[in-house]
């Protein structure tokens, strides 16, 4: 018998994590979660659904534990979290060698998803007469942009695609947001946001590598992120785009500012994302309009991701579009951050409706994502 030494290594850890054979009903129901965890499709326990749900339960429409005052205080974290998410996207943005096709594919996939969701929800918004003042095209575009980002998985080949599909929505969102809020012309808004991000990044670049100790470095980093996020949000500009510009600057600038930012921002990232999701959930005013739009958002996002995956797979050189689509279904927090930014820049009923629909829709998308987890043998 041929002995290749693999037996000595024991079973494959992924196979070991995914039970086979007859299993009890409860285990079978939990199998998709374990399967996703084993595949590195973090986080395994659907944080968007969990924390948006928790936020809703604690918010004014739920138990009221989190009142208007508490929510207003937590809004501070939203601007900072958006900037931090933008920085992470910026740090991961530049295609590594041989990834140019992947970048084009990711942008194509995001564009198709945006187009599908914007077109479908735009039709529904008009048909159901949901808007009270916001232009139909802008509202549909907000939903399309919020639907495009995906959460990155750790092990699958699609993870880089999920990293890269954030860039286009962030840039387009950065153009749209100033128009919706303070009514700044698109190009001027884009230039202002980029200048803000680069200015703050320059300040951070001068300081991050030369801090006295780790505590001072963390203060500098948090200060830069809060300054660019807060300044952008105060002016009705996109904190996500300002963060993306800052992340990109650090990536391109000489020195190790990008590595420092990636390492030191990591511990704060989870906390900031959790706060963002809780604020998103707490801000949902549950009524039939929001619920209907959220269901439509989740459904058309699924459709858009499938179509986007089929369009992008040949460009990226991937042979199984279905596996790609399954890997991209988990909603990205960036979409929710964008919807919250729209609500912040334009505090009216329409923006609240869109933000609520995006938060709930993302929470609905998450179970869809883990029910359609790809089989490891096909995905590998």
């Amino acid at each position, binding site marked *: 018998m041929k002995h290749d030494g693999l037996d000595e290594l024991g079973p494959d850890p992924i196979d070991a994590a995914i039970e086979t054979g007859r299993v009890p009903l409860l285990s079978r129901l939990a199998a998709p979660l374990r399967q996703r965890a084993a595949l590195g499709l973090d986080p395994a326990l659907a944080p968007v659904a969990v924390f948006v749900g928790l936020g809703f339960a604690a918010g004014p429409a739920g138990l009221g534990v989190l009142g208007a005052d508490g929510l207003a205080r937590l809004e*501070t974290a939203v*601007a*900072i979290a958006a900037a931090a998410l933008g920085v992470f996207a910026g740090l991961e943005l530049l295609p590594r060698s041989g990834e140019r096709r992947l970048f084009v594919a990711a942008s194509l996939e995001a564009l198709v998803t945006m187009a599908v969701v914007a077109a479908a929800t735009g039709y529904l918004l008009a048909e159901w007469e949901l808007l009270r003042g916001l232009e139909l095209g802008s509202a549909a575009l907000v939903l399309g942009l919020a639907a495009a980002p995906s959460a990155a998985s750790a092990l699958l080949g699609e993870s880089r695609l999920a990293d890269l599909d954030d860039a286009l929505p962030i840039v387009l969102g950065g153009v749209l947001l100033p128009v919706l*809020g303070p009514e700044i012309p698109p190009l001027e808004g884009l230039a*202002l946001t980029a200048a803000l991000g680069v200015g703050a990044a320059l300040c951070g670049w*001068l*300081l991050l590598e030369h801090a006295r100790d780790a505590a001072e470095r963390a203060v500098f980093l948090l200060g830069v992120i809060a*300054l660019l996020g*807060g300044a952008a949000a105060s002016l009705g500009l996109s904190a996500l785009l300002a963060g993306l510009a800052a992340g990109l600057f650090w990536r391109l600038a000489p020195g190790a500012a990008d590595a420092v930012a990636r390492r030191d921002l990591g511990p704060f990232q989870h906390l900031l994302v959790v706060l963002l999701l809780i604020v998103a959930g707490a801000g949902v005013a549950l009524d039939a309009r929001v619920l209907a739009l959220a269901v439509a958002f989740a459904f058309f996002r699924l459709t858009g991701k499938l179509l986007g995956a089929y369009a992008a797979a040949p460009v990226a050189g991937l042979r199984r579009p279905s596996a790609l689509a399954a890997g991209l279904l988990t909603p990205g927090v960036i979409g929710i951050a964008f919807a919250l930014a729209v609500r*912040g820049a334009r505090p009216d009923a329409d923006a609240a409706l869109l933000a609520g629909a995006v938060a709930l829709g993302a929470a609905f998308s998450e179970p869809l994502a883990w029910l359609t987890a790809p089989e490891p043998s096909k995905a590998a």
Partner: protein
Amino acid sequence: MADGTRAFQGGLTRRGVALLIALGLAAWARSYGAAAGVAPAAGAAAAFALGLTLLGATLVGALSERAGLPRVTGYLLFGLACGPYAADLVSEDMARQLQLVNGLAVALIAFVAGLEIDARDIAPRLGGLARFGAGALGVPLAAVGLLLWAIWPWLPVAPEATGVLRFALAFLATFVVVSFSPTVTVAVIAESRARGPLSETVLAVVVLADLVLIVGFTLAMQLVRTVTGGAEGDVGVGPLVGWEIFGSFAFGSLVGAAFALYVRFVGRELTLALLAVCAAIAVLGARFHFEPLLAALAAGLLLQNVVPTLGARLRTAVERGSLPVLVVFFAAAGASLHLDALLALAPFVAALAAARAAAVWQGGRLGTRWGRLPPTVGGEAWRGLVSQAGVTLGLATIVAAEFPTWGPRLQALVIGLVCVHEVVGPVLFRRALERAGEVGAAAR
């Protein structure tokens, strides 16, 4: 040597340029927003102020350290310079938003103070410390109390008060005016990386003296309530004081024990966990009428003295967590200083500040004799008792909220005093630490 000088100057230039960029961005954002008529949401404005404060105050604090001043003074001056009464980069609303960190900061500072008090070290010296504290606290209480009673008819607080009411109001004001600042004491010791008998003596005396002052303040409040007829239906003074003091200690010990279990069995993300514990003490303390300062102090004391191995593990977490909180706390305090109120009350503020400083100095001398402290410690310790900050402002805020007719006027006077003592106190204490040779000893 030349390389070292070049590196120093390079670092200084780099930090100076970074500070200018941060200030330039902030000024541009404020002016562009005003010109475009954009009304920022409260959360966004708070994030903006937080970022500017963290960056700017930290840089100015580092520059002031190079100029031989405490970092805390730099944080305060940055807040003052950027606040609504000067450059207005941080508006009044933003400063108020930043003060949300006050509860967390006070709890964190008290927690750190508790971690710094090693009962085994202090126990042999407790008698001496108590006698020193009696002098250092007793003389200012007597002197300031008498002065306040004497000048009360001219003080723009409640000059119409006479007899028992005048006595009660002066009694209450005395505790507020004399109170010390564990916050500044801990901050100056931490940022100077000081260790030695002077640091330990000042810290222990400030913490113990503030305990006495808080108890005295609670009693004085009850006296004023009784005299003004506002005590009807209230809980009696005994149960109230008992609840605030012993309840706070019990609550703090419970939180400290829970945190010890977390450190031992989970041990991850200690900085975030520490901040969460301090936030919980601040929020729950306010809700259940505990004194957060006492509760957090008890939590720190328990960790340091019951499970000392965990206290050492927490040191890094404390260093990481305390810097941003202290920066924001002091910069927000600087931004909130009402320069106009200070100018209007300047003569009274100057007289009271001088009287308090003289009384603290004389009290320190008397305490040194009573406590038989070595002159190198006792002769310098009074300089560590001059600062005033969060506790004093907190007490004044309580008075202003409960007695809206004359309370805000007392608050304005106290704010003026805090303005002076916040700036002068840390400088004096840092000088004392330098003269005692304790600066940098903790790092060594």
